[in-house]
């Protein structure tokens, strides 16, 4: 089963996204901040990471940059999730090393397509 790590600090967003993706057949792991997400990436090696950018302790940009600098996990695709569809947000996420970008609230169909594209590549 494809394992997805959701790194998201807001409990309701986390619960909703994990439920929707579980129903689609993904195995979901949860981390509540960037630091915990970094540890889980190394220990549990997910197939893909959905990374909220506005995280406490270590923000999503920093966590993404760190993950991409670590050769043992650099190949795990990271899709950055931010609250707004602004071009500068997108560029900032991609600049930090994210493989793709999407916005919240989630358009599930679009997110599923991005997940599959990134898993395939």
């Amino acid at each position, binding site marked *: 089963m494809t394992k997805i790590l959701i790194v998201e600090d*807001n409990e309701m967003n986390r619960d*909703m996204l994990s*439920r929707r993706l579980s129903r689609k057949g993904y195995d979901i792991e949860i981390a509540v901040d960037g630091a915990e997400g970094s540890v889980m990436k190394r220990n549990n090696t997910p197939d893909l990471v959905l990374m909220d950018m506005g995280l406490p302790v270590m923000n999503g940009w920093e966590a993404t940059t760190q993950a991409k600098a670590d050769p043992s996990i650099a190949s795990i695709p990271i899709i950055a999730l931010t609250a*707004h*569809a602004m071009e500068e947000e997108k560029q900032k996420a991609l600049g930090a090393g994210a493989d793709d970008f999407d916005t919240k*609230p989630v*358009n599930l169909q679009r997110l599923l397509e991005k997940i599959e594209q990134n898993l395939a590549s």
Partner: protein
Amino acid sequence: MRFFGQVAQAFKNSILLGVSWVEEKNGIERRIAVLNPEPDYELFDDEELIILTRQEGPEISELPQTEIEPLMEVAPHERPVFNRVLILGWNASIVDILGEFEGHAVQDVIVTIVSSHPEEYVERLLGGNIASDLNQVRVTYQNADTANRAVLKNLEIPSYVDVIVLADESNPAYDPDSRTSLTLLMIRELKEALNENEEFPSVTAEFYDQDTRALCIDTPLTDAVISPEFVSMQLTQLARQPILASIYKELLSAGGIEIALRPVHLYVPLEQEIAFSDLIVATQQANEIALGIMMGEGSKELTLNPHND
């Protein structure tokens, strides 16, 4: 298949706020509540609905057969500016209040606190961990009597965006509510001395007793919190329905879901007659939920959960 947005449109006299379900992981059951899911969220039989309703219970029409419209991309709404805040008084809530300011801040916020505590006491309390958690909030402190005319005048109150008068426990010799009312009366004098067109900050006060709040009706008070009443109402509700804890936490804390006042024209054209049900459909497209209406500019007549026609 039934979708959240579709079911929300079927309620005639209630507002669908979210969904709840029980999840089991590693043998431990957890009740989960999620507010405002996306309108295309598919509802399953193991879920319960979270609704805002009247005592007589919900009235439901048939599910609309229309397809759920895709979400629109919405530019971020402008948030009310609060960059200069004056807190008069001190109690145990102050650390949490500063934490909430940090969470809500979209730009740097200068918070000035005035109370009877010595500066060393405050430095000890607010230094260290608390200070390091505050990135956008800068706190300055002044040891002074908040019920002193000269002190209040020197603070230049009109230069602030918000004033918070806390139930002051920094001097055990005084009753907090008496101090709050005295401070508010002095703030009223300062406001009266200004020209009519000069701007004055919003003033929010904390009281321990509803009766004292009633006595302050003729002051520049914008809003008030009767903290024991608020806590007891919450405790009673949570004792009856524990799931409400996560809902209150989400609504009242910074980040995530918030309750806001927004102009109707952002969602529907004003040239034609519209029903509340139209507003429910239109707000769904922005992944928002219309809770009620406030009629007329500056009015405080709020109607929560109107009938959808």
